[in-house]
């Protein structure tokens, strides 16, 4: 188990290295430097700037310097916000983004697992068809539509909820959470239903029933553990998707998180910021996928020995 985790952790290092190097090379291949602003600076100034940001050195030296500093948590200065470092900027947005992701995933798990559970216990009945139809809608309505429509309904027509910011006004966390979490709630509902239906048909559930256990005990203690496995295995990819979704949600609701910073950096061609946030997002994605794999292998012993982590 630990060996497998370590093995996986070791594959992260080359992956992150490749990400940094490819990003670096791509940025260097780009036409136009980062200082090609509207105001044309004199060549001496550009030279000074290049020197200040180490852009005059050969590229392998730049990569080496960057990596050396990055390991110590220093992602360099921001190109567009002079005097502020990328690390500072990221750290100011990261807690918000993580909070948004956690709220959304909890919302998605809560809503998704419960409705999936209810549906699986009433297959073919109204309690199955209604939640599953709604979940289909949830999958097909993307956040770029759900967000603005929710804002329109609750913020503009009925004026019951604030539509921008995060933690500034009471209730302003509700709409972003729903916008980001709904699609995953829908997927979780389907995964839970599928997983539960499979487990409920197994022999050990029949044995539990034959022993005369109460239905609640059978469902919660015996079936849910296996039935929820598809959800757990999907948690990693889901959180990775949530992080990408935070670009849109933070933009719609004007939340100062890393996702919005990334989009703004992309607009401003703030290369150090892009590089720093790309590494951060890659690292977080890999980590969450690993965590969900570990959780899945705890719940399902057959994954543990067969190298399910691979």
């Amino acid at each position: 188990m630990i060996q497998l985790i370590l093995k996986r952790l070791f594959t992260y290092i080359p992956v992150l290295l490749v990400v940094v190097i490819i990003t670096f090379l791509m940025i260097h291949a780009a036409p136009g430097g980062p200082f090609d602003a509207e105001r044309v600076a004199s060549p001496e100034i550009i030279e000074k700037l290049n020197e200040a940001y180490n852009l005059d050195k050969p590229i392998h030296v730049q990569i080496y310097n960057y990596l050396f500093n990055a390991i110590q948590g220093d992602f360099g200065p921001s190109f567009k916000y002079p005097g502020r470092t990328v690390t500072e900027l990221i750290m100011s947005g990261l807690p918000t983004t993580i909070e948004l992701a956690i709220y959304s995933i909890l919302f998605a798990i809560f809503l998704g697992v419960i409705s999936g559970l209810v549906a699986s216990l009433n297959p073919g009945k109204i309690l199955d068809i209604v939640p599953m139809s709604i979940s289909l809608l949830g999958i097909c309505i993307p956040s770029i539509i759900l967000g603005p429509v929710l804002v329109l309904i609750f913020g503009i027509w009925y004026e019951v909820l604030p539509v921008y910011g995060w933690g500034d006004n009471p209730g302003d966390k509700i709409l972003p959470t729903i916008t980001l979490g709904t699609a995953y709630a829908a997927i979780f509902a389907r995964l839970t239903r599928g997983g539960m239906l499979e487990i409920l048909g197994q022999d050990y559930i029949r044995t539990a029933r034959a022993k005369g256990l109460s239905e609640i005990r059978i469902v919660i203690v015996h079936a849910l553990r296996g039935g929820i496995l598809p959800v757990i295995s999907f948690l990693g990819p889901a959180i990775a998707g949530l992080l990408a979704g935070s670009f849109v949600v933070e933009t719609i609701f004007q939340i100062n998180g890393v996702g919005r910073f990334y989009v703004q950096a992309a607009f401003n061609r703030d290369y150090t910021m892009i590089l720093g946030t790309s590494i951060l997002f890659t690292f977080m994605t890999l980590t969450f996928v690993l965590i969900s794999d570990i959780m899945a292998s705890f719940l399902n012993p057959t994954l543990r020995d067969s190298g399910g982590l691979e």
Partner: protein
Amino acid sequence: MWFELFQEIKHRKILLISLLYTLFLICVALLAPIISPYEVSEQNLSLGASAPSFQYILGTDVLGRDLFSRILYGSRISLLVGFLATFVAITIGLTYGAVSGYFGGKIDSLMMRLVDILDGLPFVIFIILILVIFGRDIYFLFISIGAFGWLSMARIVRLQVLGLRKKEFVISAQIMGASSSRILFKHIIPNVLGTVIIYSTLLVPQFMLLEAFLSFLGLGVQPPDSSWGILIREGANTMEEYWWLLIFPAFLFSLTLFALNFLGDGLRDILDPRDTQKLEN
């Protein structure tokens, strides 16, 4: 195979409706210049944004452009990006998966290891990166989407090829001394093409969504070109006063994603009934 597929589709109502809707949408997109009642860039500044009326059935935007015409033209770019990105993904995925599956052994495990690693990366970030660096251009848009979206295709093709490579016709071709590339392109790839096309119907809505996502952020298609993502972005920016600019494009886009997802899912379901990850279970 195609005849049986058609027979099967006829029995499934939702699938049939989705298929007809998709075909209808493609026709509409192709015929957009003929159908659209107004010139797409025709501005009527004195009119400004007007609510739906008999003259402008879906209303006009802030510049007085007919929303219905813009949606028609937007469908062209949205579908174009969806289909071309899928084409790029198929090309890469098919070649990669076929090579990996056909040669097997060390080459296979190495190539699949690479797919696993790439799968763990947040590829939206890399697409944004490419667009930022090389320009926000529609060609880079679908190439970069396709360049990151081929992973699942490679896996599916590999599995198919693994099954095919021990078949008699492949072995006889090998005995006759055909080169590996000839066997791959003449014998193996034509045999997996049907499966690939069916699976790729699921990629189209994914890629259209990705295009809309990027255009919504302002990083995809650039005005004055319009795609559904752009229209939703503009609608979201002006929805406080002009709700129709958001609601109509948003509704049509959702409907289209719905139909394409159903279509892809239903087709996959017919092809491989045991697949557990279906929408319609």
